[in-house]
């Protein structure tokens, strides 16, 4: 970013529910691991594992839980994240996003950073 660009960045009113674009990769801190959250829609893990997208990409063991990240008040469920990724920054590929509920899903790509204060 240019020198001027750095000064001009952020001169706007940013929404509390930012949108995510399917196919993009974003870096987010995961704050929780839901062991039986499935799609985040309250369905059972078995139901979650039954969708085609998930069965293609994951093993049954991986589909039993998801990492949960909040970008503002937008909720992102991260498939493939484990309990060891809580408070860790992950690169996530967005696979679904529902604008009306500000909820999305994504796939774990890589660990990219850690929290400022470990413990």
């Amino acid at each position, binding site marked *: 970013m240019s020198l001027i660009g750095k000064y001009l960045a952020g001169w706007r009113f940013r929404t*509390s529910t930012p949108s995510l674009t399917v196919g993009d990769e974003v870096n987010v*801190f995961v704050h929780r691991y839901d062991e039986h959250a499935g799609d985040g829609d309250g369905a059972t893990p078995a139901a979650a594992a039954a969708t085609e997208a998930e069965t293609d990409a994951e093993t049954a063991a991986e589909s039993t839980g998801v990492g949960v990240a*909040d970008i503002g008040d937008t909720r992102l469920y991260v498939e493939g994240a484990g309990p060891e990724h809580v408070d860790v920054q992950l690169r996530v590929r967005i696979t679904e996003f529902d604008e009306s509920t500000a909820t999305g899903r994504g796939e774990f790509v890589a660990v990219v950073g850690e929290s400022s204060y470990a413990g």
Partner: protein
Amino acid sequence: MNEDDPAAETEELTGNLQDSSEGPTIDFYGGRGMSAVPILFFIVWAIFQTAFLRISSERGLVLGILIGLIAGMFFVKGSWRGYASTIFEGMTQPVAVTAIVAWVWAGMFAETLQAGQFVGGLLWFAEAAGVTGTLVPAITFVLAALLATGIGTGYGTTIAFVSLFFPAGLVLGANPVLLFGAILSGAIFGDNLAPVSDTTIVSAVTQDSDIGGVVASRFKYAIVAAVVAILGYIAAGSVMPGADIVADAGDILSDESNPVGLIHLLSMGVVIITAVSGRHIVEAISWGIVVAVGANLVLGLAPAGEMLTFEAPNNAPGADLLGGLPIVETFEPAPDTSAAVTGSLVEGAAGFFTLSILVLFIIAAAQIMIRGGAFQAVLDWSLKWLATSVRRAELVMVGSAALINATITINTAAEVAIGPYISKVGERFNINGYRRANILDAQTSALGYIFPWSGGVLVGYTTMQELPADFEFFTDAMVINPIDVVPYVFHGWVLVAVFVLAAITGFGREYTIDRESTEVSRV
């Protein structure tokens, strides 16, 4: 690292993370909340010492945190070894070391600018501009802000401006309380925005952000608040009666004024531009030091000896040989003399030594709180009951930073103590490092110069008490009671208000998905 193999990269990083986050957990009698004893003891000590007794001594605070660390040990279940090891673990965290390195560099730069008559340059400008009456507070705010942005120390700015601008401004017809408020406001502006400010440095490194990026990103909040503050000083200056003093402002200013001192706008610009361009802060300030020292020598603003002098006894082995150098002075040994190394470079660096030790121990106490579980308990509680949305989370960050800075006089110490909490609450909502650093530092800077027990106000008040001895017209009755200035520190109040509004409206908010801050390079 093999970029073609994300899995290998992930495994390596995950392994490193587990290594770094694993550590002993410490059990305390009375539950995990008792691990907050060292920090809480320190906060109570700091309030007792600075707010009730008005002693803004960093050495006293060092003792406070040391006793706090000892007190906490008595609540540990079983062996104390883990507790003791955690103190070391905390003190060796990169965050503390990075801040200390940047402070020491910034200290050398700031003192060298002052030795080079930067204040004299600003005085000359004020005199040449011929401002009188209602506009004096507004102009004083702008010039104080400029000095504070250059030297990064609000305290230094307050001392310089109360010593010279304050009496001169009164003679020019400014309202005394408003003028003092304008000086404190300028100090806040620089403390908040300068890349060489101790609070700027702490805000950046505790939030994993590069200092140049932090400065550029906080410009928008600072400038919005400053414009409102300037308008406020113009409006208030036109309705509040000025001091009725018969004296010549020129007499006060002329002795010190020197247009050449304005060259240090260049030294200051070099640091700001190189830091914001993404250069390492040590590199950026080093360039600033080179330019400032060069300008001082070439333009005759300060002799070499003012920046560095070896004061040696004349019986030292090399005294005869080296005594002729401009940076060596010799003296006859006597019981009341002692050898020393002095000058702006030394004093500037040494000015941060005590604060550096203090910060190491505060970080150690914070680590005890993390390993003992109290930090997580506070975090869990506030995320469950207070920070339930991003808007509320930012308001919690503003409120908690403001509260701790309103209660602890030495704002840098308060900022270090609250830094981890701000970081965790912000990470929870993926608020990026720049935004977190800006929320943290605005409250730290503003609240450090408003209340009667604030360090900045005390420094100004102490300096003002010297004025009757220096100026005939200045009577003891003209010394301003610190409580009176509280409403008139416009920039401080507006800056806090800007952040409350920014949290509510989302102005300036940035998420990690928008832009990631670059961590300050440490290796």
